[in-house]
């Protein structure tokens, strides 16, 4: 989807500010959200592309203001709700009780929810299926064009490369899951991932491109087509 998360090339965000004394976690709740997500990642509730896509579904103004781990909190709440594991009303009630310093929480009913997951309902994690193989369609050095597509769902093809031509720098010929379909449970569609090298002038135009700059980006085979005109 063409969302605010797809930031490559945007103007207006000011300077990059490095804080040399930044701790690993700047907030306690951020550390809990991140690490709860790490634990849940291994339980088969969601896959990583679905998790990323959930973040993309945030309202743009929230995406920009809720902080990085705030996006993870949003994703966790929404996926757990959709999976019928923790309901929003339950979180609302528990949060209200915490906010009013209640010592004893209203217990939740443990039945009537999709937990524990049935074995065959568990979602596999990871991007590389090591027990599978694929035959790459493109070769190192080949000129390719990024397909000019604007899917409304999850995609890892960045806006700033669409319709642009580059050269295959490296063929990552492992069997990689195609995130655009896995995020929506439409199949893993295993395929090669290519590191494609773009000249800055191709991406940003002759008047704005910085000199002697190349951008390398990893794209799935389905995001690319042979560039017949510029072989």
């Amino acid at each position, binding site marked *: 989807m063409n969302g605010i998360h797809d930031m490559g*090339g945007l103007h207006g965000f000011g300077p990059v500010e490095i804080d040399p004394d930044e701790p*690993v976690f700047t907030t306690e709740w951020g550390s809990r959200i991140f*690490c709860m997500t790490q634990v849940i990642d291994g339980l088969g509730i969601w896959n990583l592309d679905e998790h990323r896509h959930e973040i993309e579904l945030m309202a743009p103004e929230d995406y920009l203001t809720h902080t990085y781990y705030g996006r993870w909190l949003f994703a966790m709440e929404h996926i757990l709700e959709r999976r019928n594991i923790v309901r929003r009303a339950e979180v609302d009630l528990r949060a209200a009780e915490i906010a009013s310093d209640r010592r004893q929480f209203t217990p939740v009913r443990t039945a009537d929810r999709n*937990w524990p997951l049935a074995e065959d309902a568990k979602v596999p994690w990871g991007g590389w299926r090591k027990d599978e193989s694929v035959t790459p369609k493109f070769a190192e050095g080949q000129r390719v064009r990024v397909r000019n597509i604007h899917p409304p769902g999850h995609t890892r093809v960045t806006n700033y490369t669409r319709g642009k031509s580059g050269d295959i720098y490296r063929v990552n010929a492992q069997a990689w899951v195609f995130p655009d379909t896995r995020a929506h449970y439409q199949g893993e569609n295993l395929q090669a991932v290519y590191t494609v090298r773009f000249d800055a002038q191709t991406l940003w135009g002759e008047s704005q491109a*910085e000199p*002697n700059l190349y951008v390398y980006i990893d794209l799935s085979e389905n995001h690319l087509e042979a560039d017949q005109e510029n072989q």
Partner: protein
Amino acid sequence: MGHNHAHPEKAWQAIRTEAIESLLNEINVLTSEDVDKVVRHYEENVGPKTGARVIARAWVDPEFKTRLLADGLVACEELGIGGPETELLHVVENTPRVHNVVVCTLCSCYPWPILGLPPAWYKSSAYRSRLVREPRKVLSELGVDLPDEVEIRVWDSVSEIRYLVMPEKPDHSENLSEAEFAERITRDHMIGVARHIPQAG
């Protein structure tokens, strides 16, 4: 929206996080002890020192360097390094004519097992938006002034492949040990927003 603002000393996100953690414990999805272990892992076990160890080894052991450039993760495993969020690692080498720098414009993909968790600036809108378009300007603002003859390679790591920059080994550094090299290599060198390795410790 259910966000409770009656508790000014506690942010609503902190309250909702606590609520979810409490519920997940109650219905046996996870235990807070499991979560504590992960927190400790990221606070104590992994961080940029891990990556510095890898680069320092490559500087003193040319055969290790060859293996590292061929398959980063396999070489890291020799040093006992690995973990989630990095399935394939490409190490990209700086030279006098080439400078490498890493970003993820779509989220904030980062080699967690090698560098720990990314700093706030790496996840910032400013870095993600600007680095692919004007890295010379960004690097210059961060104190890395590169002449036009130095080619910049930006690695936008939006797939499951992760990148680590191998900085240039400093000249006339034969007197430095592997451990002394490791002390001089920072997270910023390995992301590529710093270039010079100081000679003095």
